[in-house]
């Protein structure tokens, strides 16, 4: 009994110390996560321009979004288009390079470093500046195309190529997915390949019948992360094309940014933020649902 009491007292003491250590986090959650979320939920049903008063308008913001705001529809369409180009290219490139690097190749760490480099610098404004010049009409890429008697192509200043170009520019940063794929490929038991070799199975067939199923959970992870990032694309597009030419790269986050910080319509833009969140949740939710059919978990 005595021992028990002593134990429960140290438990209690550790209790207040634990809360003391957690204090910054608790303040952070309350002030910078929960409170803003509640506020955002309220604002999405309100009309609030930053220097006025907030007034409750019910579902008016959502009605406007779906029935009146033409730019909303444009931005949703363009964002999905961007996602559908960016995500597959990024994943295929990442898996292809990871697969090649996974055979004991000389200089693997140097290759890995170089392929990772774009993921480090890619999302900076400095890199956006560089891309803008490299891909301009007189830029480096068109000079090279000129040597091959091709082009010039207006990569960024023509509405028919701009979004495609930006999606490829995003996919260029496939390094982080590649490193995750490499880790996944390392986990595949070598015996499976040895057995397949004994049976005389072609390498191509081995890739589709052994490698892909065995790394399917890694594919799922990269797919979900890729989707989440792609829906929120902002910096590169804001700096390079700023939505143009002719609104051909006007993605969702640009619409949200302009509504909030140019038009100062905080209520309406909060509603936009929640709709984007729901779009992301629905899409990743569908992916997770479908994953039961194609993701294979090892026991």
């Amino acid at each position, binding site marked *: 009994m005595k021992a028990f009491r002593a134990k429960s007292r140290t438990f209690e003491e550790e209790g207040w110390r634990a809360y003391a*250590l957690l204090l910054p986090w608790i303040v952070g959650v309350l002030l910078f996560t929960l409170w803003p*979320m509640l506020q955002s939920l309220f604002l999405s049903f309100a009309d609030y321009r930053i220097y006025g008063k907030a007034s409750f308008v019910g579902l008016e913001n959502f009605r406007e979004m779906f029935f009146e705001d033409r730019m909303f529809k444009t931005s949703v369409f363009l964002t999905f288009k961007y996602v559908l180009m960016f995500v597959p290219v990024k994943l295929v490139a990442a898996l292809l390079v990871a697969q090649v690097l996974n055979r004991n*190749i000389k200089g693997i760490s140097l290759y890995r470093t*170089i392929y990772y*480099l774009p993921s480090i610098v890619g999302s900076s404004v400095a890199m956006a500046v560089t891309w803008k*010049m490299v891909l301009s009409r007189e830029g480096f890429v068109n000079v090279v195309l000129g040597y091959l008697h091709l082009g010039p192509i207006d990569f960024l200043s023509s509405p028919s190529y701009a979004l495609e170009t930006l999606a490829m520019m995003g996919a260029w940063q496939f390094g982080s997915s590649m490193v*995750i794929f490499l880790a996944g490929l390392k986990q595949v038991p070598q015996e499976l390949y040895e057995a397949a070799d004994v049976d005389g199975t072609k390498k191509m067939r081995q890739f589709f019948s052994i490698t892909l199923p065995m790394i399917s959970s890694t594919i799922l992870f990269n797919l979900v992360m890729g989707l989440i990032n792609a829906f929120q694309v902002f910096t590169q597009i*804001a700096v390079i094309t700023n939505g143009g030419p002719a609104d051909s790269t006007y993605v969702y*986050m640009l619409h949200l940014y302009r509504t909030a910080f140019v038009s100062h319509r905080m209520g309406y833009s909060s509603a936009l*933020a929640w709709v984007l969140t729901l779009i992301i949740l629905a899409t990743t939710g569908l992916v997770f649902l479908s994953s039961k059919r194609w993701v294979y978990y090892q026991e």
Partner: protein
Amino acid sequence: MNTPGTILRIPQITKRQWLRLLTHVFLIFGCFIMVFPLIWLVSSAFKPGNEIFQREFSLIGSRLTVQNFIDGWNINPTYYFGHFMMNTFLMVGSVVIGTIASSFVTAYAFARLQFKGRKPLFAFMLSTMMLPAQVTLIPKYLTFTAFGWINSYLPFIVPAFCATQSFHIYLLVQFVRGIPKELDSAAKIDGCDCFSIAFRIIAPLSKPAMFSVGIFTFMWTWDDYLNQLIYISSVDKFTVSLFLRSLMDITSSVAWGPLLACSLISLVPIIVMFFLAQPYFVQGIATSGLKG
């Protein structure tokens, strides 16, 4: 391997060697795609300004010059480019220190201490990792406006000291759980309370994980644009990202050179950081999985 019938002894290349050669050709071609914009950036920054856009490309212009760097450094009439670099270092540095310190104490409490509500709080912490940033973007802006923090670095620094990046807490929790518990017990017998265990035993052992947290935070904050765009409005507080963006607006074709030179300087810290941190970095991503 000798094949009968060959008179000249040409070294035979086996199929396996061909394959290896092809693999390297493929990888090197890929590397070229990965780095050509960077090589172009370096090459152009050191060229005379009028040679940056020319019909014939050459890696080194007619002469090497640092004129672009000198012009870029002085391009703003009031502040040297170094001023914006210092601003960014100041802001990013505080965010890094705050994130490491606050994430560590939070992670230690979750990984090691027994207290009421540990499990639900931990689950809640994990769920905030999934929360998309744009939902809190606008209300946070309104809150910081109410606090009078607009046009200062406080909207970056204060949340950093409050462990708002759950991803980093998670990374550290995973690491601290891997440290043998016997160390804690031994220290307890010696009369240490959980504070001194945290700071004198666990913290020094967690240095590699703290290092990864620091590097990730450094890079994300350095590269970030949206938040800086929203919170910083006056030129004297501009970060490098904002300064470069403002140059793009006013730049006529004459000033491309200085803009490229400044861009190059602004990339140096993250590239240096990346190479210094290589071992930690790849490990950190491989074990935790990560956005890119």
